[in-house]
């Protein structure tokens, strides 16, 4: 047993750190967020060049086999810089789904160019009524000749506007909320009958509402097996959760560092406010929370590839509970300790706070995952 980074892993960490330091100063990030796309193609090209788009994939799939620990390492640094490039939707979710469920032809057509930096993906699963239930899907795919026709609505689809392909979770059989009867389809981002309403998110990412009006796809658009997508999606989302946890630990480190610096320099009553015990203890609690978040993220990154599904699901949910709790504590405390400045757009603090808040909302919040964890842990 050894939980320290190997030399290769340390190099990856250092190169991700360098990228964030050089390309993601707070002012730079503001400019990137204001561009039309909301992220930079040149940064994506650099990811490809550095091999980062190949990190989680096996060598058989054209990857570099760094696995979940590799994803954890880069996502943590992305969190420190609030990086906007769509690594999560394109690489972790899109690439991950194709690697786990795709045919040889799909991997060649989609995964290989994605690793080269030439393709963007989005996962469209959520619907207005779904909340956090991955099986609450009513967008319908019906047989149409050799292919399928998709009709319905998808919401808060991250990276949809930039995506060359959208991976759509659709109902092909069964009733609402049944986990059987779900199928994944790879749909062209510019497909006829697909319309989008694009918008920025609270934390400066980009997402869209999608309407599918009789969108026709061929039989080869099916990713994995018909009617059997649920376990594949659940596993992929759990991986995305662990990646998000790593991003959140980076956010917490950054927001804690900013707050610590602030309370050392901000003076009131003639002394730096960090001299007040009530703030000192709160700051200590922030650091303890961030340490726990880091520990749970590491645990989940190590266990998310376990062959036992219960171990994987408990790992993801346990980590998400911790991230929700710690992220909220660090975020709210940072704003409070910054006083009025904490609620302005001017300082980075409010931006980290917004990202941490939205991460808790994604793929199930703290309460949702506590219930899921509890159901898994008490059954044993």
């Amino acid at each position, binding site marked *: *047993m*050894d*939980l320290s980074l190997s030399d290769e892993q340390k190099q990856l960490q250092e190169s991700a750190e360098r990228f964030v330091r050089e390309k993601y100063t707070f002012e730079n990030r503001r400019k990137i967020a204001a561009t039309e796309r909301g992220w930079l193609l040149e940064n994506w090209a650099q990811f490809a060049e550095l091999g980062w788009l190949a990190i989680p994939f096996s060598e058989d799939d054209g990857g570099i086999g760094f696995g979940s620990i590799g994803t954890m390492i880069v996502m943590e640094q992305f969190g420190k810089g609030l990086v906007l490039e769509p690594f999560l939707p394109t690489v972790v979710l899109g690439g991950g789904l194709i690697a786990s469920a795709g045919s040889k032809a799909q991997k060649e057509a989609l995964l290989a160019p994605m690793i080269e930096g030439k393709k963007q993906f989005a996962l469209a699963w959520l619907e207005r009524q779904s909340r956090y239930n991955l099986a609450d899907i009513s967008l319908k795919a019906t047989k149409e000749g050799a292919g399928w026709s998709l009709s319905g609505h998808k919401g808060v689809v991250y990276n949809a506007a930039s995506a060359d392909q959208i991976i759509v979770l659709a109902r092909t059989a069964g009733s609402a909320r049944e986990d059987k009867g779900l199928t994944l389809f790879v749909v062209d981002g510019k497909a006829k009958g697909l319309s989008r309403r694009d918008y920025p998110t609270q934390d400066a990412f980009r997402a869209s509402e999608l309407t599918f009006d009789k969108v026709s796809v061929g039989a080869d658009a099916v990713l994995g097996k018909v009617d059997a997508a649920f376990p594949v999606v659940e596993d992929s989302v759990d991986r995305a959760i662990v990646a998000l946890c790593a991003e959140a630990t980076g956010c917490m480190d950054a927001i804690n560092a900013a707050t610590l610096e602030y309370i050392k320099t901000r003076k009131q009553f003639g002394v730096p406010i960090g*001299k007040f*015990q009530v703030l000192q*203890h709160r700051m200590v609690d922030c*650091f303890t929370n961030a340490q726990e978040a880091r520990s749970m993220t590491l645990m989940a990154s190590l266990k998310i590839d376990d062959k036992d599904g219960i171990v994987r699901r408990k790992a993801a949910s346990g980590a998400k509970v*911790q991230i929700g709790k710690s992220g909220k504590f660090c975020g709210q405390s940072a704003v409070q300790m910054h006083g009025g400045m904490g609620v302005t757009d001017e300082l980075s603090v409010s931006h980290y706070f917004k990202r941490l808040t939205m991460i808790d909302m994604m793929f199930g919040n703290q309460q949702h995952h506590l219930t899921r964890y*509890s159901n898994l*842990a008490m059954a044993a």
Partner: protein
Amino acid sequence: MDLAFTAEERKFADDVRAFVKANLPADVREKVKNGKHLGRDDYMRWQQALGRNGWLVYTWPKKHGGPGFTPSQRYIFENVCAEEYAPGIIPFGTKMVGPVIYTFGNDEQKAKYLPAIRESTTWWCQGYSEPGSGSDLASLRTKAEKEGDHYIVNGSKTWNTMGHWADWIFCLVRTDPKVKPQEGISFLLIDMKTPGITVKPIIMADGGHEVNEVFFDNVKVPVANLVGKENEGWTCAKFLLANERLGIAAVPQSKRGVEALKDIARIEQDNGRPLIENKSFAEKIADLEIQVTALEYTELRVLSTMAHGGQPGPEVSGLKIRGSEIQQRISELAMEAVGEYAAPYLPGLLWQGSNEEPVGPEYAHLAAPRYFNARKTTIYGGSNEIQKGIISKMVLGL
């Protein structure tokens, strides 16, 4: 980075388990399993068995007679012992004064005291806190005045754990009252049989006798019993506290505690169903289990850093705080689980090991005393507020 144990480590785990199964007295195992109080002899039988195998001082390096375990082996050893219901090792000799002696003591002291600690033939206790010196430890006033080749010790110590069973006590005493508080303290070893020492029990809220006041009335202590230099005892004191921090998180015991809590919740009934099926109660246990996992992985990260020759980072400082809060939460939920059956107070069964029939299940009458008792965990070893003060100053630079 790898979570799996090597073949060698798995073999080591098997060896530890086989050893515990063969050497832990069955009656002691039962007491630990049922959460009963242990006597001096219970601890001694187990510790001496470990001592014969060289494992009692499992945190010591080889050059001082320890097994020189790797961090992974330490983790395995602690976990297997807890899983097999071995009692916790009394830390006063093994984790506190022992390392102080081999770090700051002279050769004569090492030869005199260390073998008996390794073999558990002496019982040590701690003389730190005083009635007027709690969190502000450096304000201590028990004085030691030199007269020829002896110190004459006068004063009193309190919150002295298990001193009524002890052969020796290590004390912080004031040897210079005129300098800054930290600069006039010395570290002294005192034989509990020395004339002038009185041990007076303090009965705790749970009705138990675990701690004492110790009074020193013109107690003659040879100068040879001074560890380190005179007036430099604060260095030993700080070293001891830092050394203590790792194990104090009690992760293996808390893992065992969560499992025991689940067992109770499977037996207790709630509206005709096992309590564990009550969603809100189950989620309280789940939340606790997640806290224990976070603590465990924080400790594992520290161990991995140490295995690579690094020093524990800031993460180690939070271990005592979170570890103690978790121990309290376990006891709180166990009490919540038994409901009104927490009320019956059966001191005979609890303290004297009588054979009287428990009221309700065996675990029920233990629940409240353990809850009351566990409030100590956020107070001792430097209260959690003191710990936060230390982290704030030493780690955050505030």
